[in-house]
């Protein structure tokens, strides 16, 4: 039961971009469409889970003083695997995510989980923690990406939702940087408003 909790806490209690306000850059940058958000989310789940497993497995071997550097090397290894795999098998996704695939290395969520969780807990708990936080991260990216795509382009996962008239005069600024910032800010405010009574 407690192991199950490691997974579910990432979905609401510690939902990464909103609760922890970490890893904002990819959240803002790749959520032009729900598909891009999903691709980024899956990449992050992979890197986060495997780096958590490896950090946790090696937690007694890595000396405390060089732990951050070691974590970065572990994370970077998995990021390179993801980079090469997407380049080989999912080239459109690789093109769309661009520079943000190598930048998963400096996503604070991943280093944060390695330091705060995986370095103190067992392998199975760490793997579930990685999966849970990763799933929460993916969920947030897909919601934000879906919202921006729906308002900005009138489509969802490239399926046309809105009428043709809407699509030809859509709020295209939602697809650009201002839309990303404002949309995330409004979602954050909604989450604050929803969870305020329970926390106080």
């Amino acid at each position, binding site marked *: 039961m407690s192991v199950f909790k490691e997974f579910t806490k990432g979905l609401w209690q510690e939902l990464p971009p909103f609760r922890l306000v970490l890893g*904002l850059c990819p959240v803002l940058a790749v959520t032009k469409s729900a598909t891009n958000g999903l691709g980024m989310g899956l990449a992050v789940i992979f890197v986060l889970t495997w780096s958590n497993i490896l950090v946790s497995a090696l937690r007694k071997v890595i000396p405390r003083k060089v732990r951050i550097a070691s974590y970065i090397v572990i994370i*970077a290894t998995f990021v390179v695997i993801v980079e090469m795999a997407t380049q080989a098998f999912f080239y459109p996704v690789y093109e769309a995510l661009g520079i943000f695939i190598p930048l998963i290395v400096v996503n604070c969520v991943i280093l944060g989980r390695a330091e705060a969780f995986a370095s103190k807990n067992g392998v199975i708990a760490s793997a579930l923690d990685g999966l849970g936080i990763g799933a929460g991260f993916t969920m947030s990216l897909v919601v934000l990406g879906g919202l921006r795509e729906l308002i900005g382009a009138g489509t969802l996962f490239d399926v046309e939702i809105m009428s043709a008239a809407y699509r030809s005069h859509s709020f295209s600024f939602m697809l650009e940087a201002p839309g990303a910032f404002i949309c995330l*800010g409004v979602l954050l405010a909604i989450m604050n408003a929803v969870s305020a009574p329970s926390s106080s």
Partner: protein
Amino acid sequence: MEYVIIVIGAVLIKNILLAEYLGCCPFMGTSKKMNTAVGMGLAVIFVLTAATAVTYPIHHYIFTRFGLEYLQTITFILVIAALVQFVEMFLKKAIPALYQSLGIFLPLITTNCAVLGVAILCIRRDYSFVESIVFAFSSAAGFTLALVLLAGIRERLIIADVPKPLQGTAIGLITGGLMALAFFGFSGVDGSLNALMQQ
């Protein structure tokens, strides 16, 4: 003249924060007070320029020569981490006054994606060495400009009557979005400059 276009492009049109989405964590984290924002901005200018100056030769003289491009991500992040550590130690010894003001921000910069991002962008855009340095410096200057502007606005937001759920990061993000919208006004400037140059 093409350097002028790079500078204007990096500072105003394709601002790394407001248009390229790099370095958003410190954008939200260190923009609550003006002096923190200035300190972070200066530290980023310093480290970004130095990091690009180091990563460029590594890529062009070691990786491309021996076909090791796949090591780019791992090596760059380690080089940046080492450089930040080195800069910190150097400043502590040589310029204690500057160290005092930059001190706490330097370790944070290792995980600032703007540094790694700009280093990789320089490689992907095939800039020459001088162009890379100019681009890195002006990107960092653009970062500082946006950060200081936002800090100025957020200092005033403290005394404003903001609805409770919007307080803190949420209103910061919305303010950032409005700033990005304002920076949209600069788009097209590079095109007109290019046209001017060709005349």
